[in-house]
């Protein structure tokens, strides 16, 4: 119902596409475990910055695409990302005013939540990975957050995405 015009939808789409591409770029051996959850990062940023544009549904759709891209059970990442989007939308006013390091901590919690859901679903449907194997990626996601935040904020301001 807002009277303001929406701008720069293509910037949001492009950032999601880039995040999806980054999440399947081949990494050697154990580095794979350290891959930040790019899609989660970008989703959280847009949920926080433009809560009126990015909804739980978009998080869910993005998760569906990620499911096919990674060839996991359909609905697994969809559920996890919908939940992440939901929580971020609920807390966006609080997270926005946090200093960067506190934001990063919240990102850690959200990513861990996502990884835990994925781990549980994997455990329910077949072989369960080791619990400790989900920690490294949550950790690197937290470390990358300030970078993504500053970068996407620059992009958002440069292209007047509202």
């Amino acid at each position, binding site marked *: 119902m807002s009277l303001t015009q929406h701008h720069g939808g293509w910037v949001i789409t492009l950032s999601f596409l880039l995040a999806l*591409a980054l999440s399947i770029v*081949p990494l050697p051996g154990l580095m794979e475990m350290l891959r930040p959850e790019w899609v989660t990062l970008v989703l959280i940023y847009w949920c926080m910055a433009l809560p009126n544009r990015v909804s*739980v*549904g978009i998080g869910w759709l993005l998760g569906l695409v990620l499911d096919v891209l990674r060839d996991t059970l*359909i609905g697994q990442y969809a559920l996890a990302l919908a939940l992440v989007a939901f929580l971020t939308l609920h807390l966006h006013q609080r997270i926005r005013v946090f200093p960067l390091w506190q934001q990063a901590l919240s990102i850690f919690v959200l990513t861990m939540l996502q990884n835990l859901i994925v781990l549980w679903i994997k455990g329910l449907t*077949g072989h369960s990975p080791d619990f400790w194997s989900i920690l490294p990626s949550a950790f690197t996601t937290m470390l990358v957050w300030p970078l993504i935040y500053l970068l996407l904020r620059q992009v958002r301001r440069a292209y007047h995405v509202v």
Partner: protein
Amino acid sequence: MRLLLLAALSITLMTLDQRTDYVRNIRSGIAVLVYPIQYLVSLPADFFDWTADAFASRETLQVNNEELQRENQALRSQLQKLTFIEAENRHLRELLQSSKRVGEKVLIAELLAVDLDPFSKVVVINKGDRDDLLYRGQPIVDARGVMGKLIHVNPYSSTAMLITDPNHAMPVQVLRNGLRAVAVGHGQDGLLEIPNLPNNADIKVGDLLVTSGLGCVFPAGYPAARVTEVTTNPALPFARIRAEPIAWLDRSREVLLVWPAVSDLPQMANPCKFEVEEVP
């Protein structure tokens, strides 16, 4: 409210995907949409391969060529014997009045250089059911041995589970004495486990494990793994046996899709059914 709806929808989708085949079309549809992403991500690796080929010096090419010719001759001489053995085998089979072997059909596909789910061992190949009659469960091999089997066939690409995936198990037998076993993946590169073999089983380090053809997925006789460790502990009911896949699971770029010849499968009361109709 919307979250609850979507969560319920996800859970429904997951259940359907796990238990049935209904969501296959959804997956195929999205897979077509994301194939460009996978293709683009894989491009740099292809480009490096291409430049390596394009700028190889004359000398390297000559050396390569010589090597290949030598290898070709060696293989040809082995093949001479093979044709003879094949003929003999066919003859013996005719004498036994068992069904005759039909040749297996193969198709070369390329792996896309992308990383999928970090918790499983899955690869993408650049062939789908758009151009060829691929089917779910189809075995893939490389030049050395068995690699895995297709789990999802999409229009332009397919995904295959490698034999090292923790959810993968493959019936094998020891080439030396025909001892049957199951090789289970462990989620780590280059490691298979052979569970449930008793401590006194006749299996040694260095034994070659080939596919046994039971289970109706892999045709019999493909090299699968080599035993690397046999630990017997009298306190435990079973021996701890580990093996290493023969195929270069993390290095092969080109793979072969195999259409098993139906008559290669063991004769059983309840013969295996294949989705593939004709084997030309």
